[in-house]
């Protein structure tokens, strides 16, 4: 599954690849939990009352501002609550959600209407249709698609790039979509090209995925300006810099704007849902995600309604293997650990993963031996080992010299590090402290790299517990301080002091625990 990674080899965490399993429709669960913040930007506003009957596709969360998108009922049923529900975040924080009890009738709302002749419609109408359907980029960002399809004044798009690579290793969502829904994807691409008046489109698909390439080539036959192009399956093309380089030869930094180069990137699943929204009027009600990992009895690609609790997916896949107690929402490198199966599937959920305890993560941290595997693995061309060394020494300014801010936080360096150094957490920490300094604040007293450097040259402690906990505690400390600090007066100072004391205590406790 991870064979394309440099020096990575086969992963111990590889638990049965679902790459070839067709997309299954997941049965409707007993309850759907629909958090109102599922996209980047202002959350939608609930516009239903408890007890109200809703039809499939009916708006349950209004978008009051242009930058927001509405939320729809994924199936017909009754609103039973508008309440706080857990979300897929490690903190276990809750957020406001509409809870729907499906009636099983799948009765469509009358408001759902497709467009008659979309390929000749005005771009503004198409954008409005896409926005009304609640379409967001179905990769990791969940940026509202209509915004991405609105180039600022004076900018234009010449070339549309369609990303057919997976967001993360081990997933096969895009591959299956391309094999099974190639025509819908092509139709969505034509709509996107119409909206931004792009003349050309390259569809980048990893060379090994011949079935997907074949299906897409067939669908693209005779479509003007659209070309399917194989890209080397060496690095995560979910990182758009690689995709752009592979398809156009242009070399972009992380901060560079694609629009400045007259480029636009969308992925295949977004194109597919744009087709559904425009031709059939269907809002974004479900998404395809991979359920995999050694802890899952029967890995599969499922099309699940938004709001389906993870438990329902896992039960459908035969439940968790005994002895498994870890669950992740998202891919193996960037996903987040979740602490309950009550978390719902969101528009951003690309995968549900569970690994056997032997996945090889929780090994003791060892000193860096400069083997260079992280350098080889880094898709951005950074030198993670040297960056981490400078962070440990507290030379944060010198870390920035090494283009720390071009780190996409893909986690590949940590995946291949034989010393099990929490590289990604180290960089997040460094970015955080640098940001705090930019705000004119001192880094936290326990910070400056000392909390991490205490561990130099030691071995035998679990790598995953200590530094992240310390970093988290410090991050909380500074964040709270900054938030509270914006208030003024004597009361605010007292609160600030209390916060700082509590945070310092938390940091100390987690370090003690680490020892």
């Amino acid at each position, binding site marked *: 599954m991870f064979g394309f990674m440099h020096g990575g080899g086969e*992963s111990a*965490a590889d638990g049965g690849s679902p790459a070839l399993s067709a997309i299954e429709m997941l049965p409707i669960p007993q309850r759907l939990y629909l958090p109102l913040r599922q996209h980047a930007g202002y959350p939608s506003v609930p516009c239903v009352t408890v007890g109200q009957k809703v039809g499939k596709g009916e708006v349950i969360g209004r978008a009051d501002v242009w930058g927001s998108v509405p939320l729809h009922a994924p199936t017909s049923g009754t609103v039973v609550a508008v309440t706080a529900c857990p979300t897929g975040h490690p903190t276990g924080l809750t957020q406001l959600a509409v809870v729907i009890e499906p009636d099983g009738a799948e009765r469509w709302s009358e408001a759902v209407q497709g467009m008659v002749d979309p390929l000749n419609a005005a771009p503004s109408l198409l954008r409005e249709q896409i926005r009304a359907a609640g379409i967001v980029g179905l990769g990791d960002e969940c940026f509202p698609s209509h915004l991405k399809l609105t180039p600022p004044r004076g900018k234009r798009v010449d070339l549309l790039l369609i990303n057919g690579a997976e967001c993360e290793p081990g997933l096969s969502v895009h591959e299956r979509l391309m094999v099974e829904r190639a025509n819908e994807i092509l139709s969505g691409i034509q709509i996107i090209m119409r909206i931004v008046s792009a003349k050309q489109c390259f569809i980048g698909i990893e060379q090994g995925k011949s079935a997907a390439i074949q299906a897409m080539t067939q669908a693209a036959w005779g479509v003007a300006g659209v070309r399917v192009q194989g890209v080397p399956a060496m690095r995560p093309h979910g990182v758009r810099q690689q995709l752009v380089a592979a398809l156009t030869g242009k*070399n972009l930094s992380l901060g560079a704007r694609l629009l400045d180069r007259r480029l636009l990137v969308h992925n295949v699943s977004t194109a597919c849902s744009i087709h559904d929204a425009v031709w059939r009027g269907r809002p974004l009600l479900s998404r395809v995600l991979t359920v995999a990992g050694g802890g899952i009895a029967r890995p599969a690609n499922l099309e699940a309604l938004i709001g389906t609790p993870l438990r329902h997916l896992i039960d459908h896949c035969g439940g968790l293997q005994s002895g498994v107690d870890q669950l992740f929402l998202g891919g193996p490198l*960037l996903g987040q650990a979740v602490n309950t199966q009550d978390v719902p599937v969101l528009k951003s959920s690309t995968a549900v993963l569970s690994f056997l305890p032997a996945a090889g993560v929780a090994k003791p941290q060892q000193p860096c031996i400069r083997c260079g595997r992280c350098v080889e693995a880094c898709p951005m061309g*950074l*030198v993670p080992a*040297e960056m981490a060394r400078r962070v440990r020494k507290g030379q944060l300014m010198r870390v920035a010299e090494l283009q720390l801010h071009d780190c996409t936080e893909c986690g*590949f360096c940590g995946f291949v590090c034989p010393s099990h150094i929490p590289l*990604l957490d180290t960089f997040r920490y460094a970015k955080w402290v640098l940001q705090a300094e930019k705000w004119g604040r001192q880094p936290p007293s326990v910070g400056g790299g000392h909390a991490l450097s205490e561990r130099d040259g030691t071995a035998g402690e679990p790598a995953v517990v200590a530094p*992240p906990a310390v970093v988290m505690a410090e991050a909380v400390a500074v964040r709270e301080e900054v938030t509270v600090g914006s208030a003024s007066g004597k009361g605010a100072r007292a609160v600030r002091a209390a916060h700082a004391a509590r945070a310092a205590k938390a940091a100390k406790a987690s370090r003690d625990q680490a020892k």
Partner: protein
Amino acid sequence: MSQTNQLMKSSPHVHDGDSVTNVMEAVIWALMPATAMAVMIFGWTALLVIVITTLSCLVTEHLFLKLRQRPSAIADRSAALTGILLALTLPPHAPWWMCVAGGVFAILVGKQVYGGLGYNMFNPALIARVFLLISFPAQMTAWPPVTPLFSEQSYSLGDSIAIVMTGKVGAPELADAVSSATPLGQYRTETGLGKTVQEALGGGYGGYDEVRAAGGLIGGSLGETVRCWGRWGGGYLLRKKVITWHIPVSMLAGCLVPATIFWTYDPAHFPDPTFHLLTGGLIIGAFFMATDMVTSPITSKGQIIFGLGCGLLTYLIRTWSGYPEGVSFAVVIMNAVVPLIDQYTRPRVYGHMA
């Protein structure tokens, strides 16, 4: 199961499962055929040298970490690896105190004073060899002829212990054999006296021909004499992706390309490249010494520069310096340049100038 494990992990959630210990173990396994051949070729003394050196490395590592109030790290196998590597650079009849001094120096001065594994600047085994070579030149260049195990020339176990522990050779009739020179030493001494390469290595010397050299059946330090086996181990490391091709290939090229040029220019005074390849420690140096990750550059481009430097310096030292063999000096000198190489060979970050 309603609640999953409360111990939260941050991403990445998967790992390829490798560890530093695995890497060190792989290198040790790769050294095993060469080590076994060294024992076969030189007899029990070789085994004693290897065991004493390795043990003194392990004990030093353990005691020093205890002194620093750190958890003992001998379980990571790096000290054992240093010990074996150092032993392979020693002459087959190295006295016990030299083995101990080398082992202690390698770990203490070569590694722990810098902060332990990962922080040392020089390859610990080679810096210890350089220390011994400078401090005890006589003992470090006493090259006995090959005495294969179970052959007529071989020493008994008792004789071997006497050789290593007391420095005395048990069988007096063999004593005069102790002073034979290595082919590299012979070449340097005799060409220095105005002879041609052919005269120096042929005739009275008789200790060198390609086949014997390739099989390791000529005098020299333990690891120098096990060429084909060292290469075999190096191949294993390359296949296991513990090391990459960059350093070994560029180091061999760095030595053999100038050797070819000078040999073509004047074959009477410069030996052919196979002589350089098959004598001395070039092969074991290229696959096992220069590839030490801690003391070599981190990028592929830097590794190629480093390897070329190691090879070229080896050739320069062998040909024009006061020492007949230069692999350890070459690698140690290049170790010192590694931070500079790293500085100038950083990969290009996307969208940034190099």
